[in-house]
Protein backbone atom coordinates (compact mmCIF):
# COMPACT_ATOMS: atom_id res chain seq x y z
CA UNK A 1 0.00 0.00 0.00
CA UNK A 2 1.43 3.36 -1.07
CA UNK A 3 -0.66 5.27 1.43
CA UNK A 4 -2.76 4.51 4.49
CA UNK A 5 -4.98 7.55 3.97
CA UNK A 6 -8.43 6.76 2.57
CA UNK A 7 -8.64 10.32 1.23
CA UNK A 8 -5.68 9.59 -1.02
CA UNK A 9 -7.11 6.61 -2.89
CA UNK A 10 -9.77 6.23 -5.57
CA UNK A 11 -13.08 4.42 -5.20
CA UNK A 12 -11.69 1.58 -7.32
CA UNK A 13 -8.65 1.21 -5.07
CA UNK A 14 -10.96 1.03 -2.07
CA UNK A 15 -13.02 -1.72 -3.69
CA UNK A 16 -9.85 -3.65 -4.56
CA UNK A 17 -8.67 -3.46 -0.97
CA UNK A 18 -11.97 -4.88 0.31
CA UNK A 19 -12.12 -7.56 -2.42
CA UNK A 20 -8.61 -8.68 -1.48
CA UNK A 21 -9.73 -9.29 2.08
CA UNK A 22 -8.88 -5.90 3.60
CA UNK A 23 -11.30 -4.86 6.33
CA UNK A 24 -9.43 -2.55 8.69
CA UNK A 25 -10.00 1.15 9.20
CA UNK A 26 -9.03 3.67 11.88
CA UNK A 27 -10.93 6.88 12.59
CA UNK A 28 -9.03 9.57 14.49
CA UNK A 29 -11.27 11.73 16.67
CA UNK A 30 -9.50 14.93 17.64
CA UNK A 31 -10.56 18.28 19.02
CA UNK A 32 -10.03 22.00 18.71
CA UNK A 33 -9.18 22.76 22.28
CA UNK A 34 -7.10 25.02 24.46
CA UNK A 35 -5.24 22.49 26.56
CA UNK A 36 -2.07 24.28 27.56
CA UNK A 37 -0.22 27.55 26.98
CA UNK A 38 2.44 25.56 25.16
CA UNK A 39 0.22 23.22 23.14
CA UNK A 40 -1.30 23.81 19.68
CA UNK A 41 -5.08 24.08 19.43
CA UNK A 42 -5.23 20.84 17.44
CA UNK A 43 -3.04 18.89 19.90
CA UNK A 44 -5.48 16.03 20.37
CA UNK A 45 -6.17 15.79 16.65
CA UNK A 46 -2.44 15.46 16.07
CA UNK A 47 -2.19 12.70 18.69
CA UNK A 48 -5.20 10.78 17.36
CA UNK A 49 -3.95 11.05 13.77
CA UNK A 50 -0.41 9.93 14.61
CA UNK A 51 -1.59 6.91 16.60
CA UNK A 52 -4.15 5.94 13.94
CA UNK A 53 -1.52 6.28 11.17
CA UNK A 54 0.97 4.10 12.98
CA UNK A 55 -1.64 1.42 13.70
CA UNK A 56 -2.77 1.48 10.07
CA UNK A 57 0.78 1.19 8.74
CA UNK A 58 1.57 -1.79 10.96
CA UNK A 59 -1.67 -3.63 10.19
CA UNK A 60 -2.35 -3.02 6.49
CA UNK A 61 -5.31 -0.80 7.29
CA UNK A 62 -6.61 2.58 6.20
CA UNK A 63 -7.09 5.83 8.10
CA UNK A 64 -10.04 8.12 7.64
CA UNK A 65 -9.45 11.86 7.82
CA UNK A 66 -9.84 13.06 11.39
CA UNK A 67 -13.07 14.22 12.93
CA UNK A 68 -11.40 17.45 14.02
CA UNK A 69 -14.17 18.91 16.18
CA UNK A 70 -15.55 17.04 19.14
CA UNK A 71 -17.02 17.30 22.60
CA UNK A 72 -14.88 19.09 25.15
CA UNK A 73 -15.67 19.15 28.85
CA UNK A 74 -13.10 20.79 31.15
CA UNK A 75 -11.91 23.22 28.48
CA UNK A 76 -15.34 24.01 26.99
CA UNK A 77 -15.42 27.62 28.26
CA UNK A 78 -11.90 28.57 27.22
CA UNK A 79 -11.35 30.80 24.25
CA UNK A 80 -10.07 28.72 21.36
CA UNK A 81 -12.05 25.62 22.23
CA UNK A 82 -14.85 24.51 19.92
CA UNK A 83 -17.22 22.28 21.81
CA UNK A 84 -19.59 20.01 19.90
CA UNK A 85 -22.73 18.76 21.61
CA UNK A 86 -22.10 15.17 22.67
CA UNK A 87 -25.34 13.86 21.10
CA UNK A 88 -24.36 15.26 17.72
CA UNK A 89 -20.89 13.75 17.89
CA UNK A 90 -22.30 10.44 19.08
CA UNK A 91 -24.70 10.26 16.13
CA UNK A 92 -21.97 11.29 13.72
CA UNK A 93 -19.64 8.53 14.94
CA UNK A 94 -22.49 6.03 14.79
CA UNK A 95 -23.23 7.05 11.19
CA UNK A 96 -19.56 6.76 10.30
CA UNK A 97 -19.45 3.23 11.71
CA UNK A 98 -22.54 2.18 9.75
CA UNK A 99 -21.09 3.61 6.56
CA UNK A 100 -17.81 1.80 7.03
CA UNK A 101 -19.68 -1.48 7.52
CA UNK A 102 -21.67 -0.73 4.35
CA UNK A 103 -18.35 -0.31 2.56
CA UNK A 104 -17.19 -3.76 3.64
CA UNK A 105 -14.93 -2.76 6.51
CA UNK A 106 -15.34 -5.04 9.52
CA UNK A 107 -12.54 -3.98 11.83
CA UNK A 108 -13.46 -0.41 12.73
CA UNK A 109 -11.32 1.29 15.34
CA UNK A 110 -11.81 4.79 16.68
CA UNK A 111 -8.78 6.56 18.10
CA UNK A 112 -9.50 9.42 20.47
CA UNK A 113 -10.54 10.80 23.82
CA UNK A 114 -14.35 10.97 23.36
CA UNK A 115 -15.52 9.16 26.50
CA UNK A 116 -18.96 8.44 25.04
CA UNK A 117 -17.34 5.73 22.90
CA UNK A 118 -17.82 3.52 25.94
CA UNK A 119 -21.54 3.40 25.17
CA UNK A 120 -21.35 3.94 21.43
CA UNK A 121 -19.42 0.75 20.79
CA UNK A 122 -21.90 -1.17 22.95
CA UNK A 123 -24.95 0.31 21.27
CA UNK A 124 -23.49 -0.37 17.85
CA UNK A 125 -22.77 -3.95 18.83
CA UNK A 126 -26.28 -4.46 20.20
CA UNK A 127 -28.01 -2.91 17.20
CA UNK A 128 -25.80 -4.01 14.35
CA UNK A 129 -24.19 -7.21 15.69
CA UNK A 130 -20.71 -5.94 14.80
CA UNK A 131 -17.97 -5.24 17.30
CA UNK A 132 -16.15 -1.96 16.83
CA UNK A 133 -13.28 -0.81 19.02
CA UNK A 134 -11.90 2.29 20.69
CA UNK A 135 -8.25 3.09 21.28
CA UNK A 136 -7.73 5.74 23.95
CA UNK A 137 -4.29 7.41 23.76
CA UNK A 138 -4.48 7.92 27.54
CA UNK A 139 -3.73 4.20 27.85
CA UNK A 140 -0.29 4.33 26.23
CA UNK A 141 2.18 3.42 28.96
CA UNK A 142 5.03 5.92 29.09
CA UNK A 143 8.10 5.20 31.17
CA UNK A 144 10.00 8.49 31.27
CA UNK A 145 7.50 11.19 32.31
CA UNK A 146 7.21 11.72 36.04
CA UNK A 147 3.90 13.60 36.02
CA UNK A 148 0.80 14.27 33.92
CA UNK A 149 2.17 17.49 32.39
CA UNK A 150 5.32 15.77 31.17
CA UNK A 151 3.26 12.88 29.88
CA UNK A 152 0.79 14.98 27.88
CA UNK A 153 3.41 17.36 26.55
CA UNK A 154 5.74 14.54 25.51
CA UNK A 155 2.88 12.68 23.81
CA UNK A 156 1.83 15.70 21.74
CA UNK A 157 5.44 16.49 20.80
CA UNK A 158 6.16 12.89 19.81
CA UNK A 159 3.00 12.69 17.71
CA UNK A 160 3.86 15.93 15.90
CA UNK A 161 7.22 14.36 15.05
CA UNK A 162 5.53 11.18 13.81
CA UNK A 163 3.30 13.29 11.55
CA UNK A 164 6.31 15.15 10.15
CA UNK A 165 5.15 18.44 11.68
CA UNK A 166 8.61 19.37 12.88
CA UNK A 167 7.94 23.10 12.74
CA UNK A 168 4.94 22.84 15.07
CA UNK A 169 6.94 20.54 17.38
CA UNK A 170 9.76 23.07 17.58
CA UNK A 171 7.26 25.80 18.37
CA UNK A 172 5.83 23.59 21.15
CA UNK A 173 9.28 23.22 22.69
CA UNK A 174 9.84 26.96 22.45
CA UNK A 175 6.43 27.80 23.97
CA UNK A 176 7.08 25.26 26.73
CA UNK A 177 10.39 26.90 27.59
CA UNK A 178 8.82 30.36 27.51
CA UNK A 179 5.92 29.48 29.81
CA UNK A 180 7.61 27.03 32.17
CA UNK A 181 6.97 27.97 35.81
CA UNK A 182 4.66 30.86 34.92
CA UNK A 183 1.42 29.04 35.57
CA UNK A 184 0.14 27.36 38.66
CA UNK A 185 -3.07 25.57 39.43
CA UNK A 186 -5.84 27.28 41.38
CA UNK A 187 -6.49 25.73 44.79
CA UNK A 188 -10.05 24.73 43.88
CA UNK A 189 -8.80 22.83 40.84
CA UNK A 190 -6.44 20.89 43.09
CA UNK A 191 -9.41 19.97 45.28
CA UNK A 192 -11.43 18.91 42.25
CA UNK A 193 -8.55 16.72 41.09
CA UNK A 194 -8.49 15.10 44.53
CA UNK A 195 -12.23 14.45 44.37
CA UNK A 196 -11.95 13.07 40.85
CA UNK A 197 -10.06 10.13 42.31
CA UNK A 198 -13.36 8.90 43.77
CA UNK A 199 -14.92 8.76 40.30
CA UNK A 200 -15.66 12.01 38.57
CA UNK A 201 -16.70 15.55 39.30
CA UNK A 202 -17.47 18.23 36.72
CA UNK A 203 -14.76 20.79 36.08
CA UNK A 204 -14.82 23.94 33.96
CA UNK A 205 -11.61 25.86 33.54
CA UNK A 206 -11.65 29.64 33.59
CA UNK A 207 -9.40 32.08 31.77
CA UNK A 208 -5.84 31.43 32.92
CA UNK A 209 -6.49 27.79 33.84
CA UNK A 210 -5.02 25.00 31.77
CA UNK A 211 -5.49 21.24 31.60
CA UNK A 212 -1.81 20.74 30.83
CA UNK A 213 0.93 22.99 32.17
CA UNK A 214 4.40 23.35 30.65
CA UNK A 215 6.66 20.44 31.52
CA UNK A 216 10.10 20.42 33.06
CA UNK A 217 11.16 17.64 30.70
CA UNK A 218 9.87 16.64 27.29
CA UNK A 219 10.71 13.11 26.18
CA UNK A 220 10.22 12.94 22.43
CA UNK A 221 12.33 9.99 21.29
CA UNK A 222 11.43 7.98 24.40
CA UNK A 223 7.73 8.56 23.78
CA UNK A 224 8.00 7.58 20.13
CA UNK A 225 9.59 4.33 21.28
CA UNK A 226 6.81 3.88 23.86
CA UNK A 227 4.19 4.36 21.13
CA UNK A 228 5.87 1.85 18.80
CA UNK A 229 6.25 -0.67 21.61
CA UNK A 230 2.63 -0.27 22.67
CA UNK A 231 1.36 -0.62 19.10
CA UNK A 232 3.43 -3.80 18.63
CA UNK A 233 1.91 -5.21 21.79
CA UNK A 234 -1.61 -4.29 20.74
CA UNK A 235 -1.42 -5.72 17.22
CA UNK A 236 -2.90 -8.94 18.56
CA UNK A 237 -6.03 -6.98 19.55
CA UNK A 238 -6.35 -5.59 16.04
CA UNK A 239 -6.02 -9.11 14.61
CA UNK A 240 -8.43 -10.59 17.11
CA UNK A 241 -11.20 -8.15 16.23
CA UNK A 242 -11.48 -10.06 12.96
CA UNK A 243 -11.85 -13.42 14.69
CA UNK A 244 -14.28 -11.98 17.20
CA UNK A 245 -16.52 -10.52 14.49
CA UNK A 246 -16.43 -13.86 12.69
CA UNK A 247 -17.55 -15.53 15.89
CA UNK A 248 -20.34 -12.96 16.29
CA UNK A 249 -21.53 -13.51 12.74
CA UNK A 250 -22.11 -17.21 13.48
CA UNK A 251 -23.76 -17.08 16.88
CA UNK A 252 -27.49 -16.55 17.40
CA UNK A 253 -28.36 -14.62 20.57
CA UNK A 254 -31.83 -15.64 21.71
CA UNK A 255 -32.25 -14.64 25.39
CA UNK A 256 -32.68 -18.34 26.12
CA UNK A 257 -36.04 -18.46 24.31
CA UNK A 258 -35.17 -21.04 21.67
Amino acid sequence: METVQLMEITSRECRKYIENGGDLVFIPIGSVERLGPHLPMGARTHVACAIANEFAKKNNGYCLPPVSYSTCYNTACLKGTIDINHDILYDLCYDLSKELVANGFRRIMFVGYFKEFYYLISEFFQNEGIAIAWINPDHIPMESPSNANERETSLVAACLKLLGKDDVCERLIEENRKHLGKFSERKSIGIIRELKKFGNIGLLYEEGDYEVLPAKNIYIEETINDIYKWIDEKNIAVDSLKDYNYYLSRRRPDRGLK
Partner: protein
Amino acid sequence: MATYFENMFPEDLYQLDNSENDTAVLPVGAIEQHGPHLLLGCDSYIALGMSECISELTGAVVFPLVSYSWIGGLRVWPGTVDLRPQKAGQYLEEICMGIVNMGFKRLVILCCHGGAREMAFLTASRVMKRTGIPVLAVFPTRLGIKEETAKILEKYEVRVKGKNCEGSLMLGGMRKIGRQDLVDKVLEIAKETALEFENSSRDFKIDSLKNVMKISEVGHDYIGETQHVFPVASINPDAGMEILEISAEVIASALEKMKMI
Protein backbone atom coordinates in the same frame (compact mmCIF):
# COMPACT_ATOMS: atom_id res chain seq x y z
CA MET B 1 1.78 31.91 4.28
CA ALA B 2 -1.57 30.48 5.32
CA THR B 3 -2.54 30.40 8.99
CA TYR B 4 -3.97 27.14 10.30
CA PHE B 5 -5.89 27.20 13.54
CA GLU B 6 -4.90 23.68 14.54
CA ASN B 7 -1.24 24.76 14.59
CA MET B 8 -1.85 27.99 16.50
CA PHE B 9 -0.89 28.34 20.15
CA PRO B 10 -2.88 30.17 22.86
CA GLU B 11 -0.49 33.12 22.65
CA ASP B 12 -1.42 33.52 18.97
CA LEU B 13 -5.04 33.97 20.04
CA TYR B 14 -4.12 37.03 22.12
CA GLN B 15 -2.23 38.45 19.16
CA LEU B 16 -5.25 37.79 16.99
CA ASP B 17 -7.41 39.73 19.45
CA ASN B 18 -5.11 42.71 19.12
CA SER B 19 -4.90 42.56 15.34
CA GLU B 20 -7.44 43.61 12.76
CA ASN B 21 -7.70 40.07 11.51
CA ASP B 22 -11.19 38.87 12.35
CA THR B 23 -11.77 36.45 9.50
CA ALA B 24 -12.07 32.68 9.56
CA VAL B 25 -12.42 30.15 6.77
CA LEU B 26 -14.03 26.78 7.35
CA PRO B 27 -13.32 24.32 4.53
CA VAL B 28 -15.94 21.63 3.95
CA GLY B 29 -15.21 18.53 1.88
CA ALA B 30 -16.32 14.90 1.72
CA ILE B 31 -15.20 11.32 1.31
CA GLU B 32 -16.93 10.42 -1.91
CA GLN B 33 -16.47 8.55 -5.16
CA HIS B 34 -15.35 10.87 -7.97
CA GLY B 35 -15.29 8.67 -11.01
CA PRO B 36 -12.72 5.92 -11.53
CA HIS B 37 -9.80 8.35 -11.50
CA LEU B 38 -10.19 11.07 -8.86
CA LEU B 39 -9.46 10.54 -5.19
CA LEU B 40 -12.10 9.96 -2.54
CA GLY B 41 -10.94 13.20 -0.90
CA CYS B 42 -11.40 15.24 -4.11
CA ASP B 43 -13.72 17.91 -2.66
CA SER B 44 -11.56 18.18 0.45
CA TYR B 45 -8.43 18.91 -1.58
CA ILE B 46 -10.26 21.63 -3.50
CA ALA B 47 -11.50 23.13 -0.24
CA LEU B 48 -8.04 22.96 1.35
CA GLY B 49 -6.28 24.48 -1.66
CA MET B 50 -8.81 27.29 -2.01
CA SER B 51 -8.71 28.00 1.75
CA GLU B 52 -4.95 28.32 1.60
CA CYS B 53 -5.25 30.82 -1.26
CA ILE B 54 -7.84 32.87 0.69
CA SER B 55 -5.67 32.84 3.80
CA GLU B 56 -2.65 34.04 1.82
CA LEU B 57 -4.67 36.85 0.29
CA THR B 58 -6.52 38.04 3.38
CA GLY B 59 -4.69 36.67 6.41
CA ALA B 60 -7.82 34.72 7.33
CA VAL B 61 -7.39 31.83 9.75
CA VAL B 62 -8.13 28.43 8.22
CA PHE B 63 -9.98 26.09 10.56
CA PRO B 64 -9.61 22.30 10.35
CA LEU B 65 -11.39 20.70 7.41
CA VAL B 66 -14.85 19.23 7.92
CA SER B 67 -14.25 15.95 6.11
CA TYR B 68 -17.65 14.31 6.29
CA SER B 69 -21.07 15.23 5.01
CA TRP B 70 -24.28 14.00 3.44
CA ILE B 71 -23.48 12.34 0.13
CA GLY B 72 -26.72 11.33 -1.51
CA GLY B 73 -26.65 9.34 -4.77
CA LEU B 74 -23.00 8.39 -4.61
CA ARG B 75 -23.38 6.43 -1.39
CA VAL B 76 -23.57 3.24 -3.46
CA TRP B 77 -19.92 3.52 -4.60
CA PRO B 78 -16.98 2.04 -2.67
CA GLY B 79 -15.18 4.28 -0.23
CA THR B 80 -17.99 6.81 0.06
CA VAL B 81 -18.92 7.84 3.62
CA ASP B 82 -22.43 9.24 3.95
CA LEU B 83 -23.86 10.99 7.00
CA ARG B 84 -27.51 11.67 7.72
CA PRO B 85 -28.12 15.22 6.49
CA GLN B 86 -29.72 16.50 9.69
CA LYS B 87 -26.81 15.26 11.80
CA ALA B 88 -24.19 16.59 9.40
CA GLY B 89 -25.99 19.96 9.39
CA GLN B 90 -26.12 20.12 13.18
CA TYR B 91 -22.42 19.30 13.35
CA LEU B 92 -21.57 22.08 10.90
CA GLU B 93 -23.72 24.56 12.81
CA GLU B 94 -21.99 23.69 16.11
CA ILE B 95 -18.57 24.26 14.57
CA CYS B 96 -19.62 27.63 13.13
CA MET B 97 -21.09 28.68 16.47
CA GLY B 98 -17.78 27.78 18.12
CA ILE B 99 -15.82 29.89 15.64
CA VAL B 100 -18.17 32.87 15.92
CA ASN B 101 -18.24 32.66 19.73
CA MET B 102 -14.46 32.82 19.69
CA GLY B 103 -14.72 36.37 18.41
CA PHE B 104 -14.33 36.03 14.66
CA LYS B 105 -16.51 38.65 13.00
CA ARG B 106 -16.42 37.25 9.49
CA LEU B 107 -16.71 33.59 8.69
CA VAL B 108 -16.68 31.93 5.29
CA ILE B 109 -17.99 28.39 5.03
CA LEU B 110 -16.13 27.20 1.96
CA CYS B 111 -18.27 24.30 0.85
CA CYS B 112 -16.72 22.39 -2.04
CA HIS B 113 -18.99 19.36 -1.77
CA GLY B 114 -22.26 19.53 -3.69
CA GLY B 115 -24.16 17.43 -1.17
CA ALA B 116 -23.37 19.88 1.61
CA ARG B 117 -24.22 23.00 -0.38
CA GLU B 118 -27.77 23.54 0.88
CA MET B 119 -26.63 22.52 4.37
CA ALA B 120 -23.95 25.20 4.35
CA PHE B 121 -26.43 27.79 3.07
CA LEU B 122 -28.87 26.88 5.85
CA THR B 123 -26.09 27.02 8.43
CA ALA B 124 -25.32 30.59 7.40
CA SER B 125 -28.94 31.55 8.10
CA ARG B 126 -29.11 29.60 11.36
CA VAL B 127 -25.92 31.12 12.78
CA MET B 128 -27.17 34.60 11.85
CA LYS B 129 -30.43 33.88 13.63
CA ARG B 130 -28.62 32.74 16.77
CA THR B 131 -25.84 35.33 16.90
CA GLY B 132 -26.63 38.21 14.57
CA ILE B 133 -23.23 37.67 12.97
CA PRO B 134 -23.19 37.28 9.19
CA VAL B 135 -21.69 34.08 7.87
CA LEU B 136 -20.95 33.71 4.17
CA ALA B 137 -21.55 30.24 2.77
CA VAL B 138 -19.78 29.82 -0.55
CA PHE B 139 -20.15 27.20 -3.23
CA PRO B 140 -17.47 27.49 -5.97
CA THR B 141 -19.83 27.26 -8.96
CA ARG B 142 -21.74 30.28 -7.61
CA LEU B 143 -18.73 32.59 -7.70
CA GLY B 144 -19.61 33.99 -11.13
CA ILE B 145 -16.31 33.09 -12.79
CA LYS B 146 -17.66 30.82 -15.50
CA GLU B 147 -16.09 32.77 -18.36
CA GLU B 148 -12.70 33.08 -16.68
CA THR B 149 -12.78 29.38 -15.88
CA ALA B 150 -13.58 28.49 -19.49
CA LYS B 151 -10.69 30.64 -20.71
CA ILE B 152 -8.25 29.01 -18.32
CA LEU B 153 -9.38 25.52 -19.33
CA GLU B 154 -8.97 26.50 -22.97
CA LYS B 155 -5.52 27.95 -22.33
CA TYR B 156 -4.34 24.69 -20.80
CA GLU B 157 -6.19 22.62 -23.42
CA VAL B 158 -8.31 20.88 -20.86
CA ARG B 159 -11.04 19.23 -22.89
CA VAL B 160 -14.29 20.45 -21.41
CA LYS B 161 -16.34 17.35 -20.86
CA GLY B 162 -18.83 17.36 -18.03
CA LYS B 163 -17.23 18.16 -14.73
CA ASN B 164 -13.59 17.78 -15.67
CA CYS B 165 -13.04 21.19 -14.10
CA GLU B 166 -13.38 19.33 -10.80
CA GLY B 167 -10.42 17.12 -11.71
CA SER B 168 -8.21 20.10 -12.49
CA LEU B 169 -9.36 21.88 -9.36
CA MET B 170 -8.50 18.85 -7.26
CA LEU B 171 -5.02 18.68 -8.82
CA GLY B 172 -4.59 22.40 -8.21
CA GLY B 173 -5.66 22.00 -4.59
CA MET B 174 -3.24 19.14 -4.02
CA ARG B 175 -0.39 21.08 -5.58
CA LYS B 176 -1.24 24.12 -3.48
CA ILE B 177 -0.93 22.12 -0.26
CA GLY B 178 2.30 20.51 -1.42
CA ARG B 179 1.06 17.08 -2.48
CA GLN B 180 2.72 16.72 -5.88
CA ASP B 181 2.93 12.95 -5.25
CA LEU B 182 -0.86 12.78 -5.39
CA VAL B 183 -0.98 14.97 -8.51
CA ASP B 184 1.32 12.52 -10.30
CA LYS B 185 -0.72 9.55 -9.18
CA VAL B 186 -4.03 11.00 -10.38
CA LEU B 187 -2.65 12.13 -13.75
CA GLU B 188 -1.51 8.59 -14.40
CA ILE B 189 -4.86 7.05 -13.44
CA ALA B 190 -6.72 9.71 -15.45
CA LYS B 191 -4.75 8.78 -18.57
CA GLU B 192 -5.55 5.08 -18.18
CA THR B 193 -9.24 5.49 -17.35
CA ALA B 194 -9.84 8.09 -20.08
CA LEU B 195 -8.83 5.41 -22.56
CA GLU B 196 -10.94 2.78 -20.82
CA PHE B 197 -14.10 4.90 -21.03
CA GLU B 198 -13.35 6.57 -24.37
CA ASN B 199 -16.41 5.18 -26.12
CA SER B 200 -18.74 4.81 -23.17
CA SER B 201 -22.16 6.34 -22.93
CA ARG B 202 -22.68 9.13 -20.46
CA ASP B 203 -26.42 8.88 -20.15
CA PHE B 204 -27.27 7.08 -16.93
CA LYS B 205 -30.61 8.53 -15.94
CA ILE B 206 -33.64 6.34 -16.39
CA ASP B 207 -36.62 7.93 -18.17
CA SER B 208 -38.98 7.87 -15.22
CA LEU B 209 -36.37 9.58 -13.06
CA LYS B 210 -35.73 12.21 -15.72
CA ASN B 211 -39.47 12.94 -15.84
CA VAL B 212 -39.88 13.27 -12.09
CA MET B 213 -36.82 15.53 -11.97
CA LYS B 214 -38.58 17.94 -14.28
CA ILE B 215 -40.66 19.03 -11.32
CA SER B 216 -38.74 18.07 -8.21
CA GLU B 217 -35.50 16.94 -6.61
CA VAL B 218 -36.04 13.26 -5.93
CA GLY B 219 -34.07 10.50 -4.25
CA HIS B 220 -31.79 8.71 -6.69
CA ASP B 221 -28.53 6.79 -6.81
CA TYR B 222 -25.68 7.22 -9.27
CA ILE B 223 -25.80 4.01 -11.26
CA GLY B 224 -22.73 4.46 -13.47
CA GLU B 225 -19.11 4.67 -12.39
CA THR B 226 -18.52 7.78 -14.53
CA GLN B 227 -21.87 9.43 -13.86
CA HIS B 228 -20.42 11.84 -11.30
CA VAL B 229 -17.11 12.66 -12.96
CA PHE B 230 -16.07 11.41 -16.37
CA PRO B 231 -12.35 10.64 -16.72
CA VAL B 232 -10.45 13.07 -18.91
CA ALA B 233 -6.72 12.73 -19.47
CA SER B 234 -6.17 16.44 -20.04
CA ILE B 235 -6.98 17.56 -16.49
CA ASN B 236 -4.31 20.00 -15.46
CA PRO B 237 -2.98 21.17 -12.07
CA ASP B 238 -1.83 24.55 -13.41
CA ALA B 239 -5.32 25.24 -14.71
CA GLY B 240 -6.70 24.16 -11.35
CA MET B 241 -4.33 26.46 -9.48
CA GLU B 242 -5.34 29.43 -11.60
CA ILE B 243 -9.03 28.79 -11.07
CA LEU B 244 -8.44 28.41 -7.34
CA GLU B 245 -6.59 31.72 -7.23
CA ILE B 246 -9.33 33.56 -9.12
CA SER B 247 -11.95 31.99 -6.84
CA ALA B 248 -9.98 33.12 -3.80
CA GLU B 249 -9.80 36.67 -5.14
CA VAL B 250 -13.57 36.77 -5.56
CA ILE B 251 -14.06 35.49 -2.02
CA ALA B 252 -11.51 37.99 -0.67
CA SER B 253 -13.42 40.85 -2.22
CA ALA B 254 -16.67 39.41 -0.79
CA LEU B 255 -15.00 39.46 2.63
CA GLU B 256 -14.18 43.14 2.16
CA LYS B 257 -17.82 43.82 1.35
CA MET B 258 -18.86 41.98 4.50
CA LYS B 259 -17.18 44.71 6.53
CA MET B 260 -19.89 47.07 5.32
CA ILE B 261 -22.76 44.99 6.69
